[in-house]
């Protein structure tokens, strides 16, 4: 196993450079094969074959795509704001790579183990909003602008439930160190104690990554790729890299926080190779779920996205935090965590479904609604 504690070769600056190189290399390979996996999985859902021609079973398709992107011309619109436009891709993908630093894959495999790792990840991952706004503004394109503004609104809103859910887990584990949180799950993974947090974590994570059903900022059928519409070649591939890296990091984080990471269900200290297999299986499970969602769900609209966040996700996650606090402070039995969280989950799901269906059955004065909206937009 890699020596990860302490400095490699005992030299701090060499150690930093080596670790960065490892991150960049691993992430690129992971992303290349994630795009391949996504194409294959979605193809299967749609009764297609997906890539089959490039390499055995199309395995080299991602490599071919990456090569093509590198070789393509890097276009910049003449009216674009030069530096904002050119720096935006880095602003999007650097924060994602930074989050990679703090994610433990096994007990000994990881880049850095921070005692405030969870806090660090939450703090750093929200930085790439700036990149999307820069891309949207700098492109001097109305679609890009619309997409950038949408991205900002969406990612800032969904930051809140995402933080609240990981906070719930941190409360139960009473630690912000991801390794400690994972190792507290040797008997029961936290998905059992905090089912609501798990579901909301995935939903908010989808929104953070701009993936279906929350791909509103990049909606192909509306704003044609949103902030990325003017990008090409290598710069565009940075956006792609960021999207799939964050998919991987978020899935690994979800596996660590909710599914018992590299520990559960094999006791408190399984051998190293088993830890690696466990985390890979759980991460793949998360990733496959997200692919599946992408293949089947339509896209929400921006106002529905917002009201879902502020009217459903945030209230229930806050309520869960409150109940967690009660249970932990008064030392009630752990099963109450499950009861509260599960009840909130079922309640919120049922309430949402009923609300949508009831609104669908009830007639609405369409003209009045539109007039009201327009009036509001006019600022009257």
């Amino acid at each position, binding site marked *: 196993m890699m020596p990860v504690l302490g400095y490699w070769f005992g030299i701090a600056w060499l150690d930093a450079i080596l670790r960065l190189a490892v991150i960049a290399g691993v992430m690129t390979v992971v992303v290349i094969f994630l795009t391949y996996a996504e194409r294959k999985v979605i193809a299967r859902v749609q009764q297609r074959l997906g890539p089959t021609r490039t390499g055995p079973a199309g395995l080299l398709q991602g490599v071919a795509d990456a090569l093509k992107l590198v070789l393509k011309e890097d276009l910049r619109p003449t009216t674009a704001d030069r530096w904002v436009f050119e720096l935006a891709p880095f602003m999007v993908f650097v924060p994602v790579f930074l989050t990679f630093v703090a994610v433990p894959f096994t007990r000994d495999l990881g880049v850095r183990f921070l005692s405030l790792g969870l806090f660090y990840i939450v703090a750093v991952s929200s930085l790439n909003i700036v990149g999307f706004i820069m891309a949207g503004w700098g492109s001097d394109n109305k679609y890009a602008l619309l997409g950038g503004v949408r991205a900002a609104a969406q990612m800032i809103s969904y930051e809140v439930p995402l933080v609240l859910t990981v906070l719930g887990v941190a409360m139960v584990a009473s630690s912000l160190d991801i390794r400690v949180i994972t190792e507290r799950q040797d008997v029961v993974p936290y998905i059992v104690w905090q089912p609501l947090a798990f579901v909301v974590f995935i939903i908010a994570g989808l929104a953070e990554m701009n993936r279906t059903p929350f791909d509103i900022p990049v909606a192909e059928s509306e704003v044609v790729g949103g902030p990325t519409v003017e990008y090409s070649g290598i710069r565009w591939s940075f956006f792609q890299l960021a999207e799939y890296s964050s998919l991987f990091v978020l899935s690994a984080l979800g596996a660590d926080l909710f599914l018992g990471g590299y520990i559960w269900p094999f006791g408190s200290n399984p051998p190293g190779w088993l830890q690696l297999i466990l985390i890979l299986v759980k991460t793949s499970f998360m990733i496959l779920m997200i692919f599946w969602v992408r293949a089947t769900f*339509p896209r929400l609209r921006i106002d529905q996205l917002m009201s879902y966040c502020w009217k459903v996700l945030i209230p229930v996650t806050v309520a869960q935090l409150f109940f967690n606090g009660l249970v932990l402070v008064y030392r009630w039995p752990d099963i109450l965590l499950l009861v509260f969280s599960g009840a909130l989950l079922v309640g919120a799901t049922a309430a949402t479904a009923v609300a949508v269906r009831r609104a669908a059955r009830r007639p609405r004065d369409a003209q009045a609604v539109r007039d009201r909206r327009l009036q509001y937009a006019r600022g009257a």
Partner: protein
Amino acid sequence: MVADFDTIDININVGPQHPSTHGVFRMVLTVDGELVRDLDAVVGYLHRGAEKLLENQDYRQGIGIQDRTEYLAQFPAEQSYVMAAEKLGGFVVPERAEYVRVICVELNRIASHFMFMGAYGTDVGVFGTSFIYGFRERERVYRFFEELTGERMMYSYFRVGGLAWEVMDGFEEKARALLQELKRGINDINGLLTRNEIFIARTRHVGEISAERAIEYGLSGPVLRSTGVRWDVRKDEPYSVYDRFDFDVPVGEFGDCYDRYMVRLEEMRQAVRIVEQALDQMPKSGPIMPEKMPRMLRLPAGEVYVPVESARGEYGVYLVSRGGNHPWRCRVKSPCFTNLQALREMTVGEYVADSVVILGSIDLVLSEVDR
């Protein structure tokens, strides 16, 4: 409280090259943030002068142009044209030919609606799955048509007076087998979209139009029926042999995008019913053309308008003849062009994302709008 600072509306040009304008349609949206304040629809990018071409082609050649005018529901377009010529010339179409025509038209309606389902799902944001489902089923129908007519899309199978040639061997069994597959396909789409909460939230009460306004605009087809007006050319002015079939005309309640989808879904089921009845009632043998057809068709002077219920609404051909072997004027009344008028009223005040869904719900075929 609304902040008191100046905002400006911006114009967004959607199309003619945009993934969800279903061809080369262009709309200029005036948006205030995410709200559509105004919409300007620009058509004409696909104008090929089909009506003028029809004036220079004889009646047999004109059938092929009809295919190209309405490339997703070709048979209704052909049917309208040949029926107009038959009415003018006073030909009586043999019964067997009429049944084959009805079967072709209804299967074509199903294929066209599958295309709609696929494109509509993509407009609402399903990543290709509904598209592939729709195309898979449409391709089954097209394969059947290819066997029947020798062409995958541009059939030119109907003739003034009847059909170009006898149907292939095993027509009935193949059609029945096809229907079984299509029923499964309809259920697939139904299972994917109909009860999905996000789909409901995205389409319900979006792009509503009242029955009165719909009639004032002269809308037709599923867009009209979704408002609750039970008007269908096949029922209200029965042509061909449609009066012999038992089928329902589905209508919606609110006239919104969801109702338009549901009306089309139900229409597909009704079309399956019609084809089944037609296969049962069809004479097993008999002529497919009138006995005495001139080799070169010359129609007497006169004018005639024949509407049919196409997949998108009332498709009509207005034919003016001054004698001779080609029409003096042929005007195509296209349902999409008429339905497109209501786009502005449906869209203004909705969100930008909805404009795409509303446009999709009209089920646009640009070649038919622009001709």
